[in-house]
C-alpha cells in the first residue's frame, strides 16, 4: 500500500508538471495586444452606435422651423441647447406682424407637435402695431435627430 501511494504520488507529480508546462505555453500564446485590439474594436462599435443614435442635427430644426413658422413672424434672437439630461430646448425672441400672426405661429407649433410646451411671453405691441415676444419651448427629439 505504501508503495502504491509512493508511486501514485510520483505519477501525480509528473502529471502536475506536465499540466503546468502546458499552461505556461498556453499563457505565452495569449497576446495582450490582440485582446486589447478586440476590446477597443468592441468599444468603438458599441460607443459609435450609441453616439450615432443620439447624434444631433439642428439643421433639421431650422428647416422645420422655416416650414412651420408663418412668414409674418420672425426671430431676432434664438438659443437652442441640449441639457445634461438630454432635453433640448429653445429660447428666443422675435417680432410678429400682428397679434393674429403670433396666434397663428402658436397654433402652428401646437399642430406640428415637435416644438412642445411653447410659451410666448413678454408680448409687447410696438408703435407700428407689430408684436414683439419671447418664446421658450422644449424640442421633440424627432426634430433634432440626425437622419442620413
Amino acid at each position, binding site marked *: 500500500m505504501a508503495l502504491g501511494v509512493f508511486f501514485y504520488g510520483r505519477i501525480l507529480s509528473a502529471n502536475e508538471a506536465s499540466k503546468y508546462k502546458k499552461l505556461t505555453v498556453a499563457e505565452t*500564446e495569449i497576446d495582450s495586444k490582440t485582446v486589447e485590439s478586440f*476590446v477597443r*474594436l468592441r468599444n468603438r462599435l458599441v460607443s459609435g452606435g450609441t453616439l450615432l443614435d*443620439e447624434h*444631433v*442635427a439642428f439643421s433639421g430644426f431650422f428647416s422645420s422651423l422655416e416650414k412651420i413658422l408663418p412668414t409674418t413672424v420672425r426671430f431676432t434672437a434664438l*438659443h437652442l441647447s441640449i441639457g445634461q439630461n438630454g432635453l433640448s430646448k429653445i429660447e428666443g425672441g422675435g417680432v410678429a406682424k400682428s397679434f393674429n400672426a403670433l396666434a397663428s405661429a402658436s397654433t402652428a407649433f401646437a399642430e406640428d407637435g415637435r416644438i412642445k410646451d411653447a410659451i410666448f411671453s413678454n408680448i409687447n405691441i410696438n408703435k407700428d402695431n407689430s408684436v414683439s415676444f419671447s418664446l421658450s419651448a422644449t424640442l421633440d427629439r424627432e426634430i433634432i435627430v440626425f437622419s442620413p
Partner: protein
Amino acid sequence: MNSRVLPALALILSVGIFFAYVKPTWSGPLKETKVAIANYEQALDAADEYKKRQNELASARNAIDQDNLNRLSVLLPDSVDNVSLILDINALAARSGLSLANIDVLTDDSTVSGKKGNESVAQSSGTLQISRANPVGSVDLSLSAIGTYSALQSFLAGIEKSARLLDVRDISVKGSDTGVYNYQMVVRLYWLR
C-alpha cells in the same frame, strides 16, 4: 513463539507505516497535488476557450470591410486631436461662407469627460484588467462666427455629416437687419480613450 511474534510485528509495522507515511501523504502532499492539477485543468480549459473565442473574433473582424473599419476609426478616433479638428472646422466654415471669429476649448470639468477614467484595458502584473468605465471621452469646443443664414445651414450640415462625429450642443443666433448674423456654438467632439 516465532510464528506469533512475526505476524504481530508485521501488523505493528503495517499500522505504523500507514499512520506515519500513507495517511499523511494521502491527505497532505497528494491532496494538494490533486487540487493543483484540478486548477491547472480548469486554467487549460479556459485557455482553450480563449483560443476558440479569439479565432471567432478574428474571423468576425476579418469579415468587416477594412474601409469601414477605417471610417469607424475616423468617426471615433484614438485621441482628442482637437488641433486638426479646429483646422477642419475652419476649412468647413470657409467653404460654407461663414467667418469664424473665435474657437476655444471649454475645459470646465462639466464639459470634459473621460480624462479621469481608467484605461479600457490595462496590463498589470501580467493579467488583463478590463475596466467598466465609459470608454468614450468628450470635450466641448466653443465657436463664434458671423455669416448669412444659408452659410449657417451649410456649416451645420457639414458638421452633422462630418466623418468625425461632432454634435452641436448649443447654438445662439443673434439677428440683424443686414441678413448677416452672429452665431455662438458649442460643438462636442468625442474620442475613444
